[in-house]
C-alpha cells in the first residue's frame, strides 16, 4: 500500500470540505477520483501534497505518516500537478522544467528527463525559451504536467490534467500516464472527464460534497447507471442520439 488515508477531515475555515474520507492507493495502481464541482477533490489532493493542513485523520505513505510540508512530501516521492496549471509565469519554459527537477543531483539525469518531457510535448521544446505566462492555456497545461514529471515521483497526483487540452493531446497524455504507470509509478488522478479517468484507472472513488459515496473497480463504476447518469454524461448522449 503506497498511500492510505483514514478518517481524513479538512476544513476551509468554516467549510467542511473533506468529511471522514478513507482512501488508499496500492503500489503500482492508478486510482481515479471523480465528483462534481466543489466535491472536495482538489482539497484532498492538496492536503496530501502538503499545500493544505488537515484537521484530523491519518495519511500514511508506505506505512509511515506523511510529512506536512510540501517540500518534504515531494522528497518522499509524491508529486502534484496542481489544478489550474500554476506554471511560473515569470520563468521560461526551460526554467520551469529546471524547477520541476530541482532535487535532481546530476545534470545527466536532468537532461534525460527534460528530453523525455520534450518528447512528450514537442511544443514545449519549440517554446523552451518563451516566458511561461505568454504560453497558451493548453501549452501551460503541458508545461505543468511536464514539470511535475521532472521530479520522477513514485506517486503522481494529477488534478484535472486534461483541462484545456485539445482532444488529440488528451489521448496522448493519458497514454503517457499508462506508460509512466507501467514503469512502476502509482497514480492518483482527479478528472472531470470521468469516462477517460475510469477507463484509465483500475479503481475509483466518487466524491460528493466531501464524502466518498462510492468506490470500487472502475469497470463497475463505468457501468453503474447512477454514475453514468451523474458523471458520464449519459443524458448528453441521450440527447445527442435524439
Amino acid at each position, binding site marked *: 500500500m503506497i498511500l492510505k488515508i483514514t478518517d481524513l477531515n479538512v476544513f476551509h475555515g468554516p467549510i467542511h470540505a473533506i468529511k471522514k474520507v478513507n482512501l488508499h492507493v496500492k503500489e503500482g495502481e492508478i486510482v481515479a477520483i471523480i465528483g462534481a464541482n466543489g466535491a472536495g477533490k482538489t482539497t484532498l489532493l492538496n492536503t496530501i501534497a502538503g499545500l493544505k493542513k488537515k484537521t484530523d485523520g491519518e495519511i500514511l505513505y508506505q506505512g509511515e505518516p506523511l510529512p506536512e510540508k510540501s517540500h518534504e512530501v515531494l522528497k518522499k516521492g509524491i508529486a502534484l500537478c496542481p489544478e489550474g496549471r500554476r506554471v511560473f509565469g515569470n520563468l521560461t519554459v526551460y526554467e520551469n522544467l529546471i524547477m520541476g527537477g530541482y532535487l535532481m543531483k546530476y545534470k545527466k539525469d536532468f537532461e534525460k528527463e527534460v528530453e523525455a518531457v520534450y518528447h512528450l510535448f514537442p511544443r514545449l521544446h519549440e517554446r523552451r525559451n518563451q516566458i511561461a505566462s505568454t504560453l497558451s492555456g493548453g501549452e501551460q497545461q503541458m508545461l505543468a504536467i511536464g514539470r511535475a514529471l521532472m521530479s520522477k515521483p513514485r506517486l503522481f497526483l494529477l488534478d484535472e490534467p486534461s483541462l484545456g487540452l*485539445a482532444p488529440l493531446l488528451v489521448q496522448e497524455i493519458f497514454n503517457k500516464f499508462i506508460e509512466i504507470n507501467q514503469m512502476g509509478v502509482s497514480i492518483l488522478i482527479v478528472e472531470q472527464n470521468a469516462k477517460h479517468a475510469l477507463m484509465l484507472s483500475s479503481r475509483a472513488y466518487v466524491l460528493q460534497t466531501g464524502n466518498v459515496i462510492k468506490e470500487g473497480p472502475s469497470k463497475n463504476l463505468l457501468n453503474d447507471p447512477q454514475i453514468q447518469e451523474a458523471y458520464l454524461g449519459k443524458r448528453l448522449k441521450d440527447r445527442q442520439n435524439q
Partner: protein
Amino acid sequence: MPILEINNVTKEFGGLTAVSNLNLNVSEGELIGIIGPNGAGKSTVFNLITGIYKPTKGTIKFKGQDIGGMEPFKISKLGIARTFQNLRLFKNLSVLQNVKIANQTFAGYDILSAIFRNQKYKAQEKEIKENALKLLEIVGLSEFINEKAGKLPYGFQRKLEIARALAMKPSILLLDEPAAGMNPDESLELMEFIGKIRKDFDLTIILIEHHMEVVMGICERILVLNFGKTIVEGTPEEIQNSPEVISSYLGEVVQDDTENN
C-alpha cells in the same frame, strides 16, 4: 451586414505569428465555434476582438465600426462581452457584486446622485440589483450571492463569469473554454444554458472549446485554427469528417468514440 467582420488580421509576438491573415464574418444571431490545437491562436483572436491586443495587421469591425486596437472598456461598452480562459473574477468581492459591476455600466447616475442618494440613484441601484439577481438565478448561483467569488468551486466560478458577461447586455458573447473543468453532465447543462441565453438575450456567440460534445452539439459553424490560420471552416459534420482536423486535432480514438454513439 455581418455584425462582426475580421479582415486579414495578423498578430505577431516578436518572431511568433500567433494569428495570421485571419478572416471571419459573423452574422447576427450565429453561434460559432472555434477549435484547434493548443496554441493555435484561439484565445488571441478573442484578445484581438476585445482590444487587449492590437492587431499587427488587418481590421476588425463591429457593426460597421472599426474597433481594432480600441481600448478594451470601450469595446465592451459597445456590446462585446467575454469570459476568460484563466478566470478573472473579482475574487474578494461577493458573487452579487461581481455581477452588479458589469451591469452598472448602464446606470448613468452621477457622483452627486450617489452622495445624496436621490431618486435616480435609488431607481437605478434597484434595477441593477434586480438584474443581477435575475442573472444569478439563471446561472443557478442564487444561493451563493453573498459568497466571496474566489471561494466558489471552479465550475461555479465559470458560471459566475458567464453571468457577469451577460450582465454587460452584450450583442456578442465570447466564451473562452466555458466547459473547462466541468464534467460531461455539467457540460450538458452548460450547452442547454448557452442555447437558452442565446435565445433569451438575442445573442451572437463565439465559443472556444476543447469539449467536442459541446462544440458539435450546439455550434452551427465551426472554425478550425492551426498555427494561427484557418485550416477548415464548416458545419460540425464537415469538421468531424475532415481528415486534416482529425489528424491535427481530434485524434482517432475520440473519433471512434463519437461514431459509436
